[in-house]
C-alpha cells in the first residue's frame, strides 16, 4: 500500500470512528437501537457476501444460521446461566459448527440447486424450533434480559449495547477486509469465475468453499447472538423465511462482492421496509422485490459498486494530467461475470 493510500485509509477510519462515537449521544434511545440493528444486519450480510458474492455460492438460508446463533445465545444465558458476554463467542462457535455441518453436503450443489437447498433449510427451521419445545421454548420463545451498562460507564443500556455491537462489528469487518482482500479472496473469485482454472492453479474448491461457508455462518451466528442481546427476545416467528431472503436482498442492494456494501445492505434492511410499510402493509414486500430486481438489472455491483465507480472516475480525472492510473487487480476482478455496458464503460474510462 502506498503512503497516500495508507493516509487515506487512516483518514477514513478516523472519520468513521468519530461518526460512530458521535451517534449514541445524538440519537434517541429508539433511534440508537435501530442503528444497532443496522450494524447487526450488516454483519450477517457480510457473512452472506463472503459466500455468495466472493465464492459465488448462492445462499438463501443465512437466516437459519442467524437464528442458530440467536438461539444458542438465548439458551446459554437463560438455561445455563452463562454470562451474556461469554455466551457470544460460544454462540459463534455453534454457528460455525452448524455452517461446517451444512456446508459440507450443501456445497456439492451448485447454482440454482444450492439456492433451492438453502431455501429448504430456511423453511424447515421454524417448525424445528417449535418442535423442540423443552429446549427452545416452542412458540413462545425465550426472553433474555437486555444488557445493562456497568456503573462506571455512565451509559444507558442502549448506548452500551451499541458500543459492544460496534466493537464486534469493527473486528469482524477488519478480519473480512484483510481475508477477502488477500489470497483467500483471490482464490474464491477464481473458483467462482472459473472453477477448473482455479483447480489447475492449486486452489482446492471444496475445501475453500466449505471453510468460507463455515466462516460466513459464524458471522451470521455472531450477528444473531447480538440480536438476542439487543432485542431481549427470540421466537420462531422472528426467523421466518423472509429474514434469510432479506439478507439476500440487502446483500444484492449493497453489493454482494464487497465488504463495505454490507453496511448499505444493513441500512436498507432496517429502514426501507419500515418506511414502505408505513404507507401500506403490503407495500414493504413489494418495494423489497422491486428493488431487488431493479438493482440486479441496473447496478449489478450494488451501491458499493456505484460508489467504487464514482471514486474511480474522480481519481481518473484528478490523475489524468499527471500520469496514467494503474488499475488495481482487485477492482478489476470484482466486476461480475456478465459484462454490462456500464462496467465496460468504466474499464474504458480507467485506461
Amino acid at each position, binding site marked *: 500500500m502506498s503512503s497516500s493510500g495508507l493516509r487515506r485509509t487512516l483518514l477514513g477510519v478516523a472519520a468513521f470512528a468519530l461518526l460512530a462515537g458521535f451517534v449514541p449521544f445524538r440519537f434517541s434511545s429508539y433511534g440508537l437501537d435501530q442503528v444497532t440493528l443496522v450494524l447487526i444486519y450488516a454483519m450477517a450480510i457480510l457473512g452472506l457476501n463472503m459466500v455468495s458474492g466472493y465464492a459465488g455460492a448462492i445462499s438463501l438460508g443465512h437466516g437459519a444460521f442467524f437464528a442458530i446463533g440467536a438461539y444458542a445465545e438465548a439458551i446459554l444465558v437463560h438455561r445455563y446461566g452463562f454470562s451474556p458476554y461469554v455466551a457470544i463467542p460460544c454462540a459463534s462457535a455453534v454457528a460455525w459448527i452448524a455452517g461446517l455441518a451444512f456446508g459440507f453436503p450443501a456445497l456439492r450443489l451448485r447454482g440454482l440447486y444450492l439456492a433451492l437447498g438453502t431455501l429448504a433449510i430456511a423453511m*424447515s427451521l421454524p417448525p*424445528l424450533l417449535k418442535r423442540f419445545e423443552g429446549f427452545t421454548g416452542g412458540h413462545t420463545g425465550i426472553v433474555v434480559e437486555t444488557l445493562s451498562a456497568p456503573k462506571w460507564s455512565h451509559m444507558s443500556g442502549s448506548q452500551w449495547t451499541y458500543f459492544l455491537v460496534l466493537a464486534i462489528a469493527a473486528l469482524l469487518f477488519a478480519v473480512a477486509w484483510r481475508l477477502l482482500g488477500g489470497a483467500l479472496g483471490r482464490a474464491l473469485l477464481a473458483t467462482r469465475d472459473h472453477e477448473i482454472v482455479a483447480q489447475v492453479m492449486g486452489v482446492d474448491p471444496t475445501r475453500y468453499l466449505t471453510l468460507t461457508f463455515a466462516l460466513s455462518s459464524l458471522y451470521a451466528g455472531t450477528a444473531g447472538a447480538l440480536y438476542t442481546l439487543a432485542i431481549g427476545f427470540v421466537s420462531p416467528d422472528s426467523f421466518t423465511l423472509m429474514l434469510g431472503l432479506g439478507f439476500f436482498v440487502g446483500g444484492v442492494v449493497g453489493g454482494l462482492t464487497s465488504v463495505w456494501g454490507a453496511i448499505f445492505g444493513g441500512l436498507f434492511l432496517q429502514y426501507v421496509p419500515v418506511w414502505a410499510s408505513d404507507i401500506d402493509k403490503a407495500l414493504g414486500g413489494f418495494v423489497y*422485490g422491486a428493488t431487488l430486481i431493479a438493482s*440486479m438489472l441496473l447496478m449489478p455491483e450494488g451501491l458499493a459498486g456505484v460508489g467504487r465507480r464514482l471514486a474511480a472516475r474522480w481519481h481518473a480525472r484528478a490523475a489524468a494530467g499527471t500520469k496514467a492510473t494503474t488499475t488495481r487487480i482487485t477492482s478489476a476482478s470484482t466486476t461480475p461475470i456478465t459484462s454490462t455496458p456500464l462496467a465496460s464503460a468504466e474499464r474504458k474510462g480507467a485506461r
Partner: protein
Amino acid sequence: MLLFFQQLIEGLMSGAIYASLALALVFSHRSTNVVNFAQGEMAMLSTFFAWQLIEWGLPVYAAMAASVVVSFVGGGILYVVFVKPIARAPALTVVTVLIGLFIALNSLGGFVWGYLNRAFPSPFAGWKVQWGALTLSGEFIGIAAVLLATLLVLFLVFEHTRLGLAMRAAAAAPEQSRLVGIPVEWMLLAGWGVAAALGAIAGVLIAPRLFVSPGMMLGVVIYAFAAATLGGFDSVLGAVIGGLVVGVAENMAATYVPWIGADLKVVVALVIIFATLLVRPSGLFGRTTVVRV
C-alpha cells in the same frame, strides 16, 4: 390397516396437487432452464383471481376455467418482462430476479386482496363413493380426475400436435429450432404460460383444503420443489411420480413416525430435496447433462 389405506388416499390426494405444481415447475424449467422460485406465488395469484370471480357470482367451474386461461396469459407476460432479459445470465442473476418476483408477487396478493383467510368452495363437495369400509371422498375423485385429464391433455398436445412438437423442439434445441423456422420466443412464452396454467390448477385444487391467503402457497411449494427434484426437473412423468411419492411419504411419516408428527412434515421435504440432489442430482427420471468445458 384401514388407517393405512385412508392415509394412503390422503397422501395420494396431496400428492396429486403437489404433482400439478411440480409439473408447473417442470414446464418453466424445460422452457427456460430455471428453477422458478416464484411459481407458488403465481399460483396464489391465480387462486385469488378464481376466488374473486366466485365472489362476483360466477359458478365455481367457470371461475376455475377463467383463472387457468388468464394465468396462461399472465405467465407469458412474466416471461417477456422478467425472464427473457436474463435468459443467458449467470445463476446469481436468475436467482435474484426470481426471488425478487417471489417477494413482489406475494406482496401484490396482499396489496390487492388483503391478508384475511378466505374460504374457497370445493367443486367436488357433493360426491362420495363408499367401497367396503373405505370411503372415497368426492375431493379424492375430483382431484384424481383433474390430474388425469390434465396429463391426457398435455400428452395429446405435446405428442400429437405440431404446436407441441415445436414447443419441445424450442426447449430442447433453441438454435436449431430457429433455423428450421420455429418462433422460439413464442414457444418459450407458451411454455411459461402452460406452467402458470398448471399452477392455477394446483391452486384451485388445494384452495378448498386450505384457505386463500397470500401465504397459502409457502407451505405447499416446498413439497412441489421436493417432488420436482425427486422426479427430475425436466421430466413430466418424474413430476407426477415425484408428487405422489412426496405426498404419500409426507402423510405416512406424519402418521407412523411419532417423532415427526404433523409439525415436522416439512422436514420430509427437506430430506427428500437434499438426498436427491446429493445422490442423483438429475432426479429419478431426469436426463444427466454433460457440460463441455
